[in-house]
């Protein structure tokens, strides 16, 4: 659709096949693939850890693993899933791959720093693997002091070191994305023509750059206290028991938006494409993204309602938490309104996007319960919280990641994935997910504390349901792994634009060449310029018209 491919021009996948050409590449697309391989590996490591946890929890007694092992398992699960899977997931893979394509650039602003990001991530990852070999760590992903600094017997230093290093990977990715978005937009790609995915990456990067260093320093202090014996947090030497929590959550609440903003970007792309509709309220969607990123910094104290924080601070943080929900609400309403008068089809990416909508909304609304101080006092540190964040992070963010992966799979690999299998997996995932995590809301409200290796028998029914769901969910995650890998070896070529979608990334070949575009892409004057009536024939026409 965009003129013939120059003869003998390889796509980025064939542009060199030595290991060296991969490990020393500065091509953002190849770095994205490197990241994708690494995070997929870690997703399954984190999943394997929690698989054992869910098996243990089938019975109230602690009969499968010892208490210490149990604690290490959920800690490893949390650390890996948060820092080595979900935070880099969409930004470092889809973001890395698509950001330059979507703005019509040849690469990110600092390609070598991009490669450095990957090496930093891998260095952090090796620390994490070393931590596993050294016997794991049992502090919870939150590293609360003084337990982590003075009491734990786990490999806290190595674990914290790994997280610290991977943090610098995030920071550099963030800097790179921000600079790229500001300086490498192709002529005509004005700020308000950017796809929402780019905006989401931009907002995410802001949070990465401004929040991550605080975590880094906090971990340095934890390590200094544990290793060198410098008193920073240790109450027995005058430390304030809550200081660590303030510093940790100053990062970790914004970090949850690092995890969800990219997902919101992906979903905006998918919904517009499969509803064949312009995005409803584009500018509001943009403002909402930036508002979430900024207001997200004001609410961290809602993790500390029972910590001994002052009652006044509780009220302030509670109020601000309600405020941060408003831009999220705007987004949910706009996605729904985008469907209005659309021409909707139900390919797998769209199914994932619907899943995201429902599950994110439930997760977000339960966030409002938690933001309500008296309710949180009851349900904090129970499975209610566990359910809340899995609804958003697994039901929301992971669904969006998988949706995005399917949506851009043809672009990334040049191959089509098996649609029927993909739809089946998406639906299976939705059911498995709800079966796993809905019972956790109920048992959480009934008082089942989290991080419990043994528990009173009256909660067993819920735990059994949840473990059953986890098995379904695990199977549903193995499916895409299998069929996507298989699809790599089929000969079903995807063509440049299998979805007849509108972003610039679809104006180049699949897979794209090393420098992304054979000829300057043409920027339409509005993003998501789908024909108002939808329908495949008209789409083909407008596309040709554009190219001419």
């Amino acid at each position, binding site marked *: 659709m965009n003129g013939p491919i120059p003869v003998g021009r390889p796509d980025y996948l064939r542009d060199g096949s030595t290991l060296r050409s991969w490990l020393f590449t500065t091509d953002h697309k190849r770095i994205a693939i490197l990241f994708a391989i690494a995070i997929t590996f870690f997703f399954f490591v984190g999943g394997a850890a929690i698989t054992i946890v869910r098996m243990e929890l089938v019975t109230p007694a602690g009969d499968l693993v010892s208490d210490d092992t149990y604690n290490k398992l959920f800690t490893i699960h949390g650390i890996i899933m948060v820092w080595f899977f979900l935070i880099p997931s969409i930004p470092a893979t889809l973001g890395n791959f698509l950001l330059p394509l979507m703005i019509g650039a040849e690469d990110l602003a600092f390609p070598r720093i991009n490669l450095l990001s990957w090496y930093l991530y891998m260095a952090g990852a090796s620390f994490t693997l070393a931590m596993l070999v050294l016997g794991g760590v049992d502090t919870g992903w939150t590293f609360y002091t003084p337990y982590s600094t003075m009491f734990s017997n786990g490999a806290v230093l190595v674990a914290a070191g790994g997280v610290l290093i991977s943090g610098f990977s995030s920071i550099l990715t963030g800097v790179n994305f921000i600079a790229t978005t500001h300086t490498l937009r192709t002529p005509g790609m004005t700020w308000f023509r950017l796809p929402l995915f780019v905006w989401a990456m931009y907002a995410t990067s802001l949070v990465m750059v401004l929040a991550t*260093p605080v975590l880094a320093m906090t971990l340095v202090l934890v390590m200094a206290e544990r290793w060198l014996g410098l008193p920073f947090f240790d109450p027995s030497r005058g430390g304030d028991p809550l200081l660590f929590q303030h510093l940790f959550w100053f990062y970790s609440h914004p970090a949850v938006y690092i995890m969800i903003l990219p997902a919101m970007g992906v979903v905006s792309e998918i919904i517009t494409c499969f509803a064949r509709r312009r995005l409803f309220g584009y500018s509001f969607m943009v403002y909402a993204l930036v508002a979430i990123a900024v207001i997200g910094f004001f609410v961290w104290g809602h993790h500390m309602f029972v910590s001994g924080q002052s009652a006044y601070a509780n009220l302030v943080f509670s109020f601000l938490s309600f405020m941060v929900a408003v831009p999220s609400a705007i987004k949910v309403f706009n996605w729904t309104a985008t469907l209005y008068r659309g021409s909707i089809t139900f390919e797998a990416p769209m199914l994932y996007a619907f899943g995201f909508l429902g599950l994110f909304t439930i997760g977000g609304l339960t966030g409002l319960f938690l933001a309500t101080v008296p309710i949180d006092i009851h349900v904090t540190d129970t499975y209610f919280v566990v359910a809340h964040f899995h609804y958003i992070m697994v039901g929301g963010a992971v669904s969006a990641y998988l949706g995005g992966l399917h949506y851009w799979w043809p672009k990334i690999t040049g191959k089509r994935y098996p649609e029927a299998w993909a739809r089946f997996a998406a639906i299976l995932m939705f059911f498995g997910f709800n079966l796993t995590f809905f019972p956790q809301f109920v048992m959480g409200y009934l008082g089942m504390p989290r991080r419990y290796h043994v528990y009173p028998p009256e909660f067993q029914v819920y735990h059994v349901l949840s473990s059953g769901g986890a098995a379904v969910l695990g199977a549903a995650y193995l499916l895409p792994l299998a069929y996507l890998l298989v699809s790599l070896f089929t000969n079903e070529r995807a063509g440049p634009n299998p979805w007849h979608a509108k972003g610039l990334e679809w104006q180049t070949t699949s897979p794209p060449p090393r420098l992304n575009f054979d000829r300057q892409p043409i920027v339409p004057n509005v993003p998501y310029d789908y024909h108002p009536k939808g329908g495949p024939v008209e789409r083909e026409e407008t596309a040709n018209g554009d190219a001419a």
Partner: protein
Amino acid sequence: MSDAYLHPPWKDLNRQHQAVTFGMWVFLASEVLLFGGLFAGYTIYRDLYSRGFLAAGHQTSIVFGTINTAILMTSSLTMAVAGRAARAALLRTARLMLMATFFLGVLFLILKGFEYREDIQKGLFPGHGFPLTAAGAQIFFSFYWVMTGIHALHVTGGLAAVLRLIIASARNREWLAGSTSEEATALYWHLVDVIWIILYPLLYLAGRVNG
């Protein structure tokens, strides 16, 4: 000739220059927040243990601290002049000033090393046998070590970047005039100076009055 400075994916030197300085500024924002956590902790404890902090602050070496502040400020001056000279194509001055910067940075680290030795001789590393008993004194010195330690790491990083400029400009005299690395390095170096300027009153000026 300006192509020599262009790195992919850039096609225009001006644009590349803009991106590099802007990127560096964004990175510096991140660096500032790295120290932000330390400042916050320091503030909380200083409020809680004001007496201990003053007593401990009295023990740091005002002489080393002040001389080092002056040195770092002067290195900032030489760095700033280097940049201006490079842009005015006064390449010899630029190189000389870079070397001066490097020299001052190394001097800073050497003095810091002597100061550390003195601190350790005085037993000022928190732990058993710490000489000060006032509550919070050990916490003050924990901050002292981590703040100055992390800052020294930054100085070392900055020195490496300056050294790189010196070497590259030795190979090719013209290089400094159009390179974008010079400006990025300078920004980083100045930030290291700014951080020290803030650390100075926190660590060295506390408790000078009644000790």
